[in-house]
């Protein structure tokens, strides 16, 4: 029996119709493409009316196949599959054809665009007729979730899930959870104490009966897929036994080896070779920095061992590998700071009193290296004037094009703290002042009133070469004031560079492990920039916080909670449907050549020596189709992408070539 195909051409308002003659295309399909029983064009196919139109035609016109020519299948394939299901048609008998992203939005002329749309529709019709009804495979969702990164975003996600009663495994790379927020003194715009709002969440996560925390640990490997991932975690050796350590800190106190702390104190303070990154660290268990430990380096010392009453020091501890099953993964790995040395004209690393924003956070932190006193690099002189330079490494084609989103606000916060603590003059050198969240503009107005000076213009240079009276011994900011329209030189005692938030150095690598991609800059790509901000293209992998793009704490927290909610939805449902796109081997035709065996990266093909045939283990197959393309006997079938379907698509897509060659009209397909 011939199939009855329904073709639906969407205008997408004027998005498609503005470039493609949708009406003509629909008419053409009905008249020229064989087996097209119904062909319509409509303003918005994805609207409920559009879907109802398809459903009604399936019922009334007895359609056996549906083609929707509209946007990318990545956007609406599910929508139209559902419409088909509703009307009793197997959803896999629907094919989408992308005439928006691949045609109307990229074409310059109407005629070629319309012709291209015809080709794609002809291909889709040819293909859909050969599609087979399939049932999505159902997989149970393991209720345990892996959260990678224990910054504020990861903590929020962890606590939401744990409070809802689901087990969470939190993996944090550094010895303590808390992320960047742990380094701050105050948070804008409310100026509430960062530690006061963060540390309760840290201890809550640690003590929660549903949370297993692996700190000083990293995600090594991920396999499996949504609902049933297998993950391998490497828990690095702390050289301290977590089960015995009471967190008293006697070891730290007596450790004779002092080391510059380049992590938490960003080079401004010291720690010991055995250390906790900060007093409120969670877990409150020290780590031995083996590279700097006298025992590990020179075979002498072992003072900490002597000091430790419970005997928790273990110099022979090895990295531990933990393998776990989880249903979903949330990546919340945050950001790293731009290396301000990359802009040499700003003098960071060369001019002592040029600081980075993170250094300044530590300087004004009551628990920081100067106990919160804002002083110059000499450790004692209070600055009488401070310049804050915005957009260092952001909004700069040479480094990062993006706006770091938080620096203007952090600069205002710094301005307030300097004014409050020192009474120095504060100058902000900004390009545009971006204070567009709740209470942010109000905070800016407050700083205007408090007397912070604002100079609009990108700083050209920071130098200690005095040229004019009053500049000796100062740092001089050279900048074009774009409001006054002239060059200015402003001498100050201290400069703070608002370094950009950048993606983590290993973001791409970690993303690949989990099967998700990054933007060109290196931020994780969400499934949809507006409508699906925490899901990714890989089912079961979510992103939250600054790893998805520079953002402030409220936004990071909102994403953490959103990712958790998405995961809870899946756990509550209990099962997920996964695409039934897998390979299978027709054993009758298999010659046992085993060529396919080493095509599969998942070892999904096993060889049955007894019967001299190969067999696909469906549960392991991910459906890439590489083995299908390799089998010399052509006996491997890739469901939904089999040779016949793709072959028909090729014929259909070239309908005009065949028509031109006179080798039978399009109707032959």
């Amino acid at each position, binding site marked *: 029996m011939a199939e009855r195909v329904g073709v639906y051409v969407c205008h997408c308002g004027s998005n498609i119709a503005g470039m493609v003659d949708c009406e003509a295309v629909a008419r053409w399909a009905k008249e020229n493409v064989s087996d097209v029983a119904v062909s319509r064009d409509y303003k918005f196919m994805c609207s409920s009316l559009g879907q109802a139109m398809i459903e009604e035609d399936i019922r009334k016109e007895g359609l056996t196949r549906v083609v929707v020519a509209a946007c990318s299948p990545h956007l609406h394939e599910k929508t139209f599959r559902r419409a088909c299901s509703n009307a009793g048609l197997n959803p896999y008998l629907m094919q989408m054809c992308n005439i928006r992203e*691949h045609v109307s939005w*990229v074409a310059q002329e109407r005629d070629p665009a319309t012709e291209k749309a015809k080709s794609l529709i002809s291909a889709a019709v040819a293909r859909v007729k050969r599609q087979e009804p399939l049932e999505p495979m159902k997989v149970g969702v393991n209720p345990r979730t892996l959260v990678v990164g224990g910054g504020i975003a990861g903590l929020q996600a962890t606590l939401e899930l744990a409070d809802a009663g689901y087990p969470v495994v939190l993996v944090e790379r550094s010895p303590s959870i808390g992320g960047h927020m742990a380094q701050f003194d105050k948070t804008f715009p409310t100026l509430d104490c960062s530690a006061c709002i963060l540390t309760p969440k840290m201890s809550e996560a640690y003590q929660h009966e549903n949370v297993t925390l692996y700190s000083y640990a990293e995600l090594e490997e991920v396999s499996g897929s949504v609902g049933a991932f297998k993950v391998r975690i490497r828990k690095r050796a702390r050289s301290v036994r977590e089960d015995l350590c009471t967190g008293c800190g006697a070891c730290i106190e007596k450790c004779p080896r002092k080391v510059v702390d380049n992590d938490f104190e960003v080079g401004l303070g010291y720690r010991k070779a055995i250390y906790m990154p900060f007093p409120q660290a969670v877990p409150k268990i020290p780590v031995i920095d083996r590279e700097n430990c006298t025992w590990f380096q020179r075979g002498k010392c072992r003072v900490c061992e002597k000091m430790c009453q419970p005997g928790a020091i273990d110099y022979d501890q090895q990295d531990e590998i933990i393998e776990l099953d989880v249903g979903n993964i949330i990546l919340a790995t945050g950001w790293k700071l731009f290396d301000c040395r990359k802009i040499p004209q700003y003098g960071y690393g060369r001019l002592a009193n040029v600081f980075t924003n993170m250094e300044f956070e530590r300087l004004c932190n009551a628990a920081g290296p100067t106990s919160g006193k804002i002083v110059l690099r000499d450790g004692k002189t209070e600055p009488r004037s401070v310049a804050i330079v915005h957009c260092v490494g952001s909004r700069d084609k040479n480094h990062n094009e993006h706006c770091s989103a938080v620096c203007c606000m952090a600069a205002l916060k710094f301005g307030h703290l300097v004014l409050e603590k020192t009474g120095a003059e504060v100058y902000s050198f900004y390009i545009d002042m971006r204070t567009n969240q709740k209470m942010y503009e109000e905070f800016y107005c407050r700083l205007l009133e408090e007397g912070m000076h604002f100079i609009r213009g990108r700083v050209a240079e920071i130098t200690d070469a005095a040229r004019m009276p009053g500049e000796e011994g100062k740092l001089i900011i050279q900048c074009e004031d774009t409001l006054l329209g002239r060059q200015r030189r402003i001498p100050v005692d201290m400069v703070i560079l608002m370094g950009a938030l950048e993606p983590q150095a290993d973001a791409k690598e970690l993303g690949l492990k989990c*099967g998700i991609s990054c933007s*060109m800059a290196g931020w994780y*790509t969400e499934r949809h920039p507006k409508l699906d901000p925490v899901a990714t293209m890989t089912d079961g992998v979510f992103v939250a916080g600054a790893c998805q793009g520079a953002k402030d704490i409220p936004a990071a927290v909102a994403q953490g909670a959103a990712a958790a909610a998405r995961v809870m939805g899946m756990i509550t449902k209990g099962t997920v449907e996964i695409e039934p796109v897998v390979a299978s081997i027709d054993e009758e035709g298999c010659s046992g*050549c085993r060529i396919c065996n080493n095509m599969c990266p998942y070892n999904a093909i096993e060889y049955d020596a007894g019967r001299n045939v190969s067999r696909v283990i469906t549960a392991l197959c991910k459906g890439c189709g590489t083995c299908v393309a390799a089998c010399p006997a052509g006996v491997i079938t890739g469901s939904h992408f089999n040779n016949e379907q793709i072959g028909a698509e*090729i014929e259909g897509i070239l309908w*005009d*070539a065949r028509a031109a060659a006179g080798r039978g009209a399009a109707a032959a397909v």
Partner: protein
Amino acid sequence: MSEAFEPRIVGFLCNWCSYRAADLAGISRIKHAPNVRIIRVMCSGRVDPSFVLKALALGADGVMVAGCHPGECHYIEQNYKTIRRYGMLKHTLKAFGLEDDRVRLIWASAAEGQQLAEAIDRFVQDVRRLGPLNWPRFWNEDPARLAAVEKMAAEHAEAMEVPA
């Protein structure tokens, strides 16, 4: 309308990176030549060389295969297999007496809409320069060509190796 030759090109794009790059080019309204007609496959590794030959035989003037960058395939390493097949395919085309520039393998990550659009434009231009493909016109029994086929088979024996 000008009478310039407009090549017909079939593009096989993998679902995860390159198809999404094409989507991104659309979302960002990056205009490019309309000549490449896209067929979505799950992975560039699914592209059976016979698909390419079939497209050329049915009237395509060129075929583009696009995948994720090496090392970034959604299925770990399948695009390395694509690379090997591509080499083989080029030999095959030469053996058939066709310009091997009519097939092109390119990489585009999901973020590279701009790069993909540029690659499409470049390929269309290059195929336009080659002119229309009229396969039968190219075919004749040429001993040099048959020798090339033999050589190709030998060179790619490794790709067809059977595991021990």
